[in-house]
């Protein structure tokens, strides 16, 4: 798995009465934190990349290819949500296995990949558990394990660790960083926490009222030179 560049060219989208228009360029294997006030359009941005929303105009490019018209499954993208990443009635192994085959037709190689992914995410031996028997952190690890077996060049994280405790969150961020080091996928991560951005992101895209109002490397964004509105947002 390697990364892929992402490019949004004047992507227009209306959500209710809010008009959104995104321009963003992310290099291959970059990690970008998407930050901004609630309702500014962070999740919508991710949904547009993932294909859950279709732009009214403009184009979404991944690895130089226009994917605007492609359905979600045909885009080289994996996504982890804040919750509901798992199907409650399927075991951990089955939930991960869905990343390989959406009808769960798995061969021996798939099974060993699944086991390896679970091991890599610290879930060895928990293949047969049901989601209800896992902690919140473990559930998100299952989701990451599925990302591994899917091995897509783009990973979208929609506040996946928002409901975890600080220690767990740090652990998960470490895991994402390690996975990124191993696989080099491009990561877009929506977060409210400056710490998350600090810990993981190379760059920060700041979203305000449906547009990307600033995009710069993390150091710049957390320095005196950051835009005023961003400083106000993070409370510096």
């Amino acid at each position, binding site marked *: 798995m390697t990364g892929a560049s992402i490019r949004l060219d004047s992507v227009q989208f209306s959500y209710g009465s809010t008009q959104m228009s995104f321009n963003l360029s992310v290099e291959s294997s970059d990690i970008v934190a998407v930050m901004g006030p609630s309702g500014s359009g962070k999740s919508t941005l991710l*949904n547009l990349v*993932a*294909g*859950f*929303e279709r732009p009214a105009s403009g184009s979404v490019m991944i690895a130089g290819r226009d994917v605007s018209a492609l*359905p*979600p*499954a*045909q*885009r080289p*993208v*994996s*996504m982890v*949500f804040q*919750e*509901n*990443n798992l*199907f*409650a*009635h*399927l075991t951990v192994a089955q939930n991960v296995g*869905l*990343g390989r085959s*959406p*009808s*769960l037709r798995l061969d021996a190689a798939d099974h060993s990949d699944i086991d390896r992914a679970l091991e890599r995410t610290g879930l060895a031996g928990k293949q047969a558990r*049901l*989601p*209800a028997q896992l902690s919140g952190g473990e559930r998100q690890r299952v989701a990451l394990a599925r990302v591994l077996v*899917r091995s897509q060049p783009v990973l979208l994280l929609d506040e996946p660790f928002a409901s975890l405790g600080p220690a767990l969150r740090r652990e998960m961020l470490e895991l994402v960083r390690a996975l990124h080091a191993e696989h080099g996928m491009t990561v877009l991560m929506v977060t409210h926490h400056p710490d998350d951005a600090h810990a993981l992101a190379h760059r920060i895209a700041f979203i305000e009222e449906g547009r990307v109002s600033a995009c710069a490397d993390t150091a710049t964004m957390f320095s005196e030179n950051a835009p005023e509105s961003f400083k106000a947002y993070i409370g510096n």
Partner: protein
Amino acid sequence: MIDRRILAGSIGLAAVALLIGGAFAGLAAEAFHDFGRTLGAIDAYLLRVVRFTVWQAALSTALSVIPALFVARALARHPSFPGRGLILKLFALPLALPAIVAALGILALLGRAGLVSDLMTTLTGSRWQGIYGLSGILIAHVFFNLPLATRLFLQALDTVPSDQWRLGAQLGMGQRASFRFIEWPVLRTALPGVAGLVFMLCITSFTIVLTLGGGPRATTLEVAIYQALRFDFDPARAVTLTVLQIALTAAIVFMLIRLGANMAGDANLSVSPRRPVASGPVERVFSAILIVSALLFVAGPMAAIIVSGLQADLVRLASDPAVHAATLTSLVLALGAAVLSIALSLSLVMARRTLELHRHRNAAPSLLEQLFDTGAGFVLVIPPIVLGAGWFVLMRNTGLVFVVAPLMVVTVNAVMAMPFAIRAIRPAYDAASARHERLAASLGISGINRLRLIDWPVLRRPLFMAMAFAMALSLGDLGVIALFGSDSVQTLPYLLLARMGSYRTADAAGLALFLGIICLLLMTFVDRTGNRT
């Protein structure tokens, strides 16, 4: 300390038990010494009746529920299907139609003089004799219950979190995988309840079975009960047969519950109704075919009802004071029944959930918890004539019969609508509870405040949906009124049958159209109010 919600639910359940128990007590007191003889009266004829009753109900249930699974799924996967909202409203209408009106509508298409008659006569070479017999009964039952089941399944599918639809789309789940992993688990949870409800409606079928059954071969227990209480005036036999009917239903419903899975894990309400479903052109075509055939099946007889309704002198009917009075009575009764029904249902739903929270995760639900869930449903299999006669016996010496009559209509309709209302409310309430229970407890929000602040916003839609069901059901009900002196409460369907019973067939057709229009308006109103944010 007993939780207040359990207390409320227990009161609700007690009210239902009182309604049923009172009727039984009244009839039993009337015929106390006759019971020994009655038990001996279970003969070959009765066994044949029982067999046919269960057989037609089981077949009708299967034919209504299984296609409904797929129609509901098609509707769920195509949130922007043209006319979807109207289709759903149309699907609530059969509930409000008196059986004979529906039968005439179906016969206008498939009857001996129906639209298909010439075609079938040419095809088969002999005069088409209509659909009388088991096929006619099944078609009519599917007409009533397929749309109902579809709506209930669709509600269940609405509880799938939108993240899971997205996940399915991203993982590239095809139709089959998506059915297996996303839709079927939810549908399977809803299946026993929906199938049980449809079964109850079919097992008590009376007019449809007699009119379309073609002869006394097609006789249900309900007919035998009616006969026992009417011509033979044998309350003991009526009570015995009713108990038999309840026992049969309970056995079937119990089996269905055993078959159904009780889903562990948390249900979540979709945050966003916008649901991206990757559907290829093939699926779109199939779904469209499915939806359109279901629509035609339901809309065909409705169209026939409209056509014959339009031939009536609608202007005269619209200015007939008797029609005005009946419309007003129907609306007041339906509204009263719906409000009462929702209050009772909500109390039962809350109590059930509270009991569920109190028990250990993997412990089996207690009898009380199961009663809260399905207990009220059994009122559906008690013939209205039994409820009416039983309560009449209790009330006859009080001089209150006239006051009680409309209250009886409201109460019985309210309780009869409870199984529908509970189906609509429970998933949403349980989901809301799963999310807010602890928060509410920690903030000390309970009782009315909790209902108003925490539950109402989430329950608003399902509550209005339940209301729509209850009103439609009550609007079409002919009720328990027969013995109470029917002129004290004249509803629209009552007026309709009265006109039909005195050669005024055209008037009856016009009134059926009125009834349909009123029901459609109510649905629209309820939809609007329910969706307002």
